[in-house]
């Protein structure tokens, strides 16, 4: 344990500087307004890892940290697609996950929103053409919006969500 502690202290902070709080605040408040208008109260998100390298997940979990704290804007991550309004799918869809993703989509109650996250999710990204891949998310289930980046930053994720909301309104 001491060794771990020493390593943690020796290395220090290595994450990139986060986006300024004011920008997050502004984005978040708009997002909350959109959510309130479209869903009444809040947006429940089920995150599905369809085969990602986990880079995208790290950024997504950054959203739940104290700096971004997305719950204050009415966004919640939930543990089952049965509780979700929105699927946040990361990574290329591997062959093993294709059916599971399809079932998750079926299990999500209508109306539902599917947002693909990361370059991989658009077309397989750097994994494109691999024998293990069924393609991008859109090859398996209908996608409403794609948030690009490898990985997209938390701020980009918030912006992407807002964008998806806007598109849903039209």
């Amino acid at each position, binding site marked *: 344990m001491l060794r771990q502690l020493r390593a943690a202290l020796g290395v220090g902070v290595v994450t990139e500087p986060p986006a300024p709080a004011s920008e997050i605040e502004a984005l978040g408040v708009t997002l909350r307004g959109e959510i309130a208008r479209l869903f009444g109260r809040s947006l429940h998100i089920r995150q599905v890892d369809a085969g990602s390298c986990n880079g995208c997940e790290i950024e997504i979990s950054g959203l739940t940290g104290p700096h971004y704290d997305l719950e204050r804007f009415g966004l919640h991550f939930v543990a089952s697609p049965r509780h979700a309004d929105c699927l946040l799918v990361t990574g290329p869809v591997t062959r093993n996950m294709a059916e*599971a993703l399809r079932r998750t989509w*079926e*299990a999500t109650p209508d109306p539902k929103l599917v947002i693909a996250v990361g370059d991989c999710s658009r077309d397989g990204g750097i994994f494109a053409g691999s024998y293990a891949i069924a393609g991008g998310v859109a090859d398996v289930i209908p996608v409403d919006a794609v948030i690009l980046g490898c990985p997209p930053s938390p701020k980009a994720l918030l912006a992407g969500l807002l964008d998806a909301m806007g598109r849903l309104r039209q």
Partner: protein
Amino acid sequence: MSRVAYSVAAALGALAAMIGISGLLGDTWVVTVPWAVPLGGLQLSMDRLAGFFVALIGFATIPVSLYAIGYAGDDRRGALPYVGFVIAMCAVPLAANVMTFAVAWELMALASYLLVVQKATNGTATHPGAPAADGSESHDASPHAGGRHAHDAAEATGAAWTYAVMAHAGFVCLLAGMLLLSAWSGSTRFADWRDTELTPLARDAVFVLLALGFASKAGVIPLHVWLPLAHPAAPSHVSALMSGVMIKLGVYGLFRVSLEWIGPAPAWWGVAILVAGTISAVVGVLYALVEHDLKRLLAFHSIENVGIILIGLGAGVLFLESGLGTLAVLGIAAALYHTANHAAFKGLLFLGAGAVVRSTGTRNMEVMGGLVKRMPWTAAMFLLGAVAISALPPLNGFVSEWLTFQALLQSLQVPHTGIGLVFVGGMAGLALTGGLAMACFVKAFGVTFLALPRSEAARSAVEAPGWMRLGMALLAFACVALGLGPTIVVPVLGLVAGDLTGEVTPLWFGDWLRLDVPGDFASLSTFAIAIALLVAGIVPLVVLRARGLTRRRVYETWGCGRLLQTSRMQYTATAFASPFRRIFDFLYQPAHALHVEAHPESRFFVDAIRYVHETRAVAEDWLYHPLSQALHDVTERIRGVQSGSTNVYLVYILAALVLMLVLG
């Protein structure tokens, strides 16, 4: 033929219920038939306590016998002993002298012995080829089929043997105690015992003998060993009666002994009863938790519930000794209420278990599952029974456990600190028991009825026939009625308790909706709770409907996107009980064994995994085995006397003759 016998039994039950009710309401009579049996003749007398138990037996017999019509079908074995069993049980609380009691008690034991041993004789088990219910938990991928018949027979023989030995050991204690009392008081009539002056030592000796005898019938730990063997071995309607009513007659005896025959009781009797009750309640439910044989699980719960009854009785005895008559009546009424309640819900649960066992051919919960779809009726009834036994409002188990708690909570009025501590122990034990019982029935219901079937037998299960459902429905109705009607039942039981203690009952008919505990201590309205629960269930439904949010989609169970969902992915009963097994391992003394058979080429290719887990029965290991071993050794030694040689026997006769002459 069996149909006639069971119908007769049901009619007898109705008759007993009527007679019992009239006795319960204050009717008293004595019947004497001098020539029927020697030593005082056959004598029956009715008072409130006897009326209560006769009514209990009657009311339990009606639904159980109706159930038996469907359960036994054309199977004629056991029909006659069953009728005899019912009659003998009714006679026990009515018996007014030693001889009548002894005859009734022995008939009851004999008839129930015949019913337990019934499967050992001939006949067929319900479904040959169904998986066997093992005492130990062994988890094979494929439960072994066949051999069930022989297994059943061997099990029934062993169970009946243990039962016979325990019943007779208990009977010897009873008879010794009663004969001592008769000799000292000069009368074999129970009614005369009350006024006999006895030395404290003599009273204590008689109490110990009688209490041991009755406690072994009631299944108080550590005298319970016969119970988890005999209950499962008997057919389910018999189990329902044995557990619901017969063991209560042991409790009946304890009522008489500690309050009437040789009362007033000194404090240590009450302490002994309360402590024995607490231990039985906690240990009984702990054994039930790790049990995966459905009927054995219920049998252990009977031990637990007898413990709860004894907690109430012990509290009553202690209150009486401390001069708190009002509270004594409360404690005893609570004990009586729980006696009735246990007969209703345990009878119901045994009948439900019987329906399951009949249609799956096994008692092992690990190979059940998914029965709620195949046996919806039975499942609903079993669930109701499970809710009642878990003491959840508004059903009956809740009311009597609540009353017991109210009695215990008022122990602050007892001046003696040491006794106060015993009460605190009882309270803690009762609270722990309630929680564990609920956990146990989540397991019993969940593993048996929910999720996917774990075996072919469970998959092809069918609903129980009409007669069986009728029996269950009647008992379910009793559970609900006893839960909603405490304002009527409790005052009547207060009268019984008042008669026993010689106190004026503080529990009286008053408010129809609210039950008040004497001394402005607490009050309860199960009606209000029932209505609140109903409203809590209905209001959201109405609101949703009003808002038009009633769209439904039927879709398969969400399984995290898994392609294949089999019953092997389900929570098993063993897994459910595992945390409890770990916490209480000092009691279970568990032994684990994990066998992994790997492929010869690589240890990463596993052919089979076999996990065996056994919990040890502490009472058997530490008490009964040494005892039977010692007995065996002694008889081994004495056997030398019986050499088989005629010459030696002639010497014995001569020696005896000389001895007689010398002594004479």
